[in-house]
């Protein structure tokens, strides 16, 4: 399958500080790719390098096989982007802001109308941008990214500042864009949003990709069971640790987490009951992206 984005050992240094370190991404065409990381992890710098706005110190970027920044003009014809906060002229209406872009890109004015319809902003299209709410600004930013019907859409925090209804609406829009064959590169802090929307994800920490892959595979890479003992769980721990196919036993306040095959939960139950340890509950643990994100981005050097 064609790759919409491919980076190899992408690095950006500012003086002695390494902002982005050796990032290799592969985003398949048609996918919704989540790009996660705490503040200052290097997400926006990476996006700026993808768009040719910042020159990499090392490594390379290709969009649909076209080198950036060497052939940026050609490559960016297939890309629509909203970077950080939506940036528009405050004294122009939403419609005129889009017209500035259609004129610059040699597109017909009808493209502006079409994009405004897609993001449901037609009713406010003639109001000045400075009077727009945060949600309307975000929508206009997405409309601007869609103007030339690009194959790849890069969205940096697209639901930032939106109320829950607005967030659901934008998520729906992103889904429908993906269904129409657009590739979406989504940088977001909303982990549940990424989990709901994305096929693939990369988690960034201090400029380095800590984890990358399909959301489904990452969430199911390590099967875990939650075992709740009725009473004192101390007796159960050495017993479970002695079983060779249980890789790890983690003790929590009122339950144990076992890293073990899910299909062997009945055996665990039998074993514990035979040893007169009453089991209140055994169930598969469904890891959330949020937990994974926190685990991956936690500062392991911290005391």
């Amino acid at each position, binding site marked *: 399958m064609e790759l919409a984005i491919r980076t190899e050992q992408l690095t950006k240094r500012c003086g002695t500080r390494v902002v982005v370190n050796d990032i290799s991404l592969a985003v398949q065409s048609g996918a919704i790719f989540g790009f996660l990381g705490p503040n200052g992890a290097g997400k926006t710098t990476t996006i700026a390098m993808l*768009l*040719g*706005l910042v020159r990499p110190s090392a490594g390379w970027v290709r969009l649909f096989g076209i080198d950036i*920044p060497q052939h*940026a*003009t050609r490559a*960016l014809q297939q*890309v629509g*982007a909203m*970077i*950080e*906060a939506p*940036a*528009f*002229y*405050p*004294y*122009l209406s939403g419609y*005129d802001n889009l*017209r*500035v*872009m259609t*004129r*610059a*890109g*040699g597109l017909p004015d009808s493209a502006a109308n079409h994009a405004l319809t897609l993001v449901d902003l037609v009713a406010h299209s003639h109001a000045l941008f400075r009077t727009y709410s945060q949600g309307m600004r975000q929508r206009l930013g997405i409309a*601007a990214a869609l103007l030339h019907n690009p194959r790849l859409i890069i969205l940096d925090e697209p639901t930032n500042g939106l109320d829950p209804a607005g967030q659901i609406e934008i998520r729906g829009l992103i889904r429908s864009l993906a269904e129409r064959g657009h590739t979406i590169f989504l940088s977001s802090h909303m982990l549940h949003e990424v989990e709901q929307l994305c096929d693939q994800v990369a988690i960034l920490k201090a400029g380095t990709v800590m984890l990358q892959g399909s959301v489904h595979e990452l969430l199911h890479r390590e099967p875990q069971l939650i075992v709740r003992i009725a009473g004192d769980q101390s007796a159960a721990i050495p017993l479970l640790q002695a079983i060779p196919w249980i890789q790890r036993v983690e003790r929590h306040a009122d339950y144990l987490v076992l890293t073990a095959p899910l299909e062997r939960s009945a055996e665990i139950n039998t074993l514990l009951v035979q040893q007169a340890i009453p089991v209140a509950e055994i169930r598969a643990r469904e890891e959330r992206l949020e937990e994974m994100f926190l685990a991956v981005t936690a500062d392991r050097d911290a005391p």
Partner: protein
Amino acid sequence: MINLLRAEWLKMSRRPLTWILLAIFLALFVVQAVSQTALAALLGERPGDTILAVQIAEWRRRVMLPGLFGAVLNHLNSLGAAFVVIFAAGMMGSEYSWGTLRAQLARHPDRTRFLLAKIMAIMLAISAAALFNLVLGLLIGLPLAAAIGSIGEFSFADLLQIPLALLRAVYVLLPYLLLTISWTLLGRSVLAGVAGGLGYLILEAGVGTLAPLQKVWGAGTWGS
């Protein structure tokens, strides 16, 4: 390039700053023309070549033909430079403060073409302002001149010189425009452009006052 120029023109023509600066620039011309003509009418014609007599004659000449054209061009090249600095710094610097430059470059990464389109659009706006000033000069100057006696004389040869003189006046403003754009790009702000441009204007005026020293030190060392 034409597409970028059209986009710049849309931004510029819809921006209140453009019309406010034009209104102030033209209002200053009107105030100057009306006040000087009123003073000339009040003081009446003075015989001889006293400073006052020469000044009154000059004020009258500025609203009569063909002196009116000279007054318009003089307004363009004196106060016009300061307005060009503020306008150009506003047009370029705001792209940084609003973050629109980054968004623009993410779509059309050719910075040189963007900058050229911006400069060309500002030059077009300056040319339009010069034309407005000329038309307003005629609309205001001729009735004023008629009120104080004569509208003067105007030949076909004078008429042919007007477009060239206007182009020259606009061209004279180009270095101030380029200097302001350079300062704005360096400082990435409106303030840097205004400070750099106006600073140069003040410096230029200051150096200009030293010109009489040429006579003291001799023309040979300053050129002929």
